[in-house]
């Protein structure tokens, strides 16, 4: 576990990157899977919690307080805490990743749904919309920019946290960071492990922005 601390000498073997594109690609795909699963599960749980928080106002405080406390736990500590119970498995990684998405997703979803103007809802009710139809066809679309803003923040965070799951095996591109640390600061691996996820996060962030613009053409200026 502890990195070898001797200082390496000599030039940097950048050719390592070109020689190992297959491995890097494989790790990138794993990184995307770990991120994707966490986002889908986290979003599903967050939607349930948000709807509960809106129907039953009393729950909002406790929900955000709990998810807020989770947010302040250092992630690698959380993965280590879970490890004795769920082992060094994908499950451990995903439980941690999902928990970290919840705060941002719930807060933004509730804020988005709250922001739907009362007179719009009133008009819809007057037109005979049922509660469910009102939610699906009026409230959800109008809240979408703020919800997607939350998804963007959560996605960027998750891509970063996946690197840390390398400590409990897996970790996508983060694995290269730990390898690089253990091999006398082998720079090419460290750079791939550090720059790769950053690029991934920026690309996914941009992609979600495009999705949001496509889905809500009426609002070019979303709350970030």
């Amino acid at each position, binding site marked *: 576990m502890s990195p070898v601390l001797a200082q390496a000498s000599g030039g940097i073997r950048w050719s390592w990157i070109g020689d190992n594109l297959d491995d890097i690609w494989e790790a990138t795909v794993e990184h995307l899977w770990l991120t994707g699963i966490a986002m889908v599960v986290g979003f599903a749980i967050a939607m349930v919690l948000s709807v509960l928080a809106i129907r039953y106002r009393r729950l909002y405080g406790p929900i955000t307080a709990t998810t807020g406390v989770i*947010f302040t736990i*250092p992630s690698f500590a959380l993965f280590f805490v879970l490890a004795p119970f769920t082992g060094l498995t994908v499950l451990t990684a995903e439980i941690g990743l999902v928990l970290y998405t919840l705060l941002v997703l719930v807060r933004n979803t509730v804020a988005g749904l709250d922001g739907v103007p009362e007179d719009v809802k009133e008009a819809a009710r007057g037109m005979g919309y049922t509660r469910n139809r009102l939610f699906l066809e009026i409230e959800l679309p109008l809240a979408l920019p703020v919800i997607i803003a939350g998804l963007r*923040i959560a996605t960027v*965070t998750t891509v970063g946290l996946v690197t840390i799951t390398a400590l409990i095996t897996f970790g996508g591109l983060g694995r290269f960071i730990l390898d690089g640390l253990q091999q006398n600061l082998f720079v090419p691996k*460290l750079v791939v492990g550090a720059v790769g996820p950053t690029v991934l996060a920026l690309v996914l962030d941009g992609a979600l922005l495009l999705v949001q613009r496509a889905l809500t053409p009426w609002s070019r200026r979303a709350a970030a």
Partner: protein
Amino acid sequence: MVAPGGRLMDAIVETFRWLTDAASWTGPRGVLARSLEHLWISLVPLASAMAVAIPAGVLAGHHRRGQAVGAAISNLGRAVPSLALLVFGLLLSVRVLGLGFSFWPIVFTLFFLALQPLFTNSYTAVREADPALLEAARGQGLSERDVLLAVELPVASPVILTAVRITAVQVVATAPLGALAAGGGLGRFIIDGFGQKDDGQMLGGVVLVAVFALLVEFAITRLERRVVPGPLQGRTDAAAVVATGRAN
């Protein structure tokens, strides 16, 4: 197979035993010494980042310039994983500056980590000061310098201080990462406990880090009440958190 309930009890008992053992607390590797290290490796980068990022953000906000640069810093700052920041901190300290392991890598890491939320929130806080307020101040003949110091800064102070608090908690909670680069602080217990399969020590370390973060939060909240002008108190949190949102 042991029942999960039994495991949980074991873990709690072991953690409690480690935390209440006097030997865990004393000596150069004890909790007291490690807490002081933790404070030091958090305070140095936080103070330096505040000295750089807050004036930069305030000035950029006052001149309403650098919106694109500010947005880029904010996006990029959030996108770089904390483990990647540790890599940059390590390479900068060991390879570029020759300052070695243990202290400087984590200090550089936490410095980089703190820049983005401090800059973004200072910038936003100043820029979003009520235009009517600024017009009134200028109409009364205040110089630009006075507008900045006597109007914009006090109005922005709640958001800036909230950003300082949130950033401080982030820094304190990320500092344990330094243990991966042979650093000191409370992270040692977590990493060493994990490495030695000593659950009591590892979980004890997690508890200590959490308590440390809560104490920092509490202390700065107290400070906020003293520094922020009365009528402006308790008006921010959500906005600053949204602009910062990042787990470590």
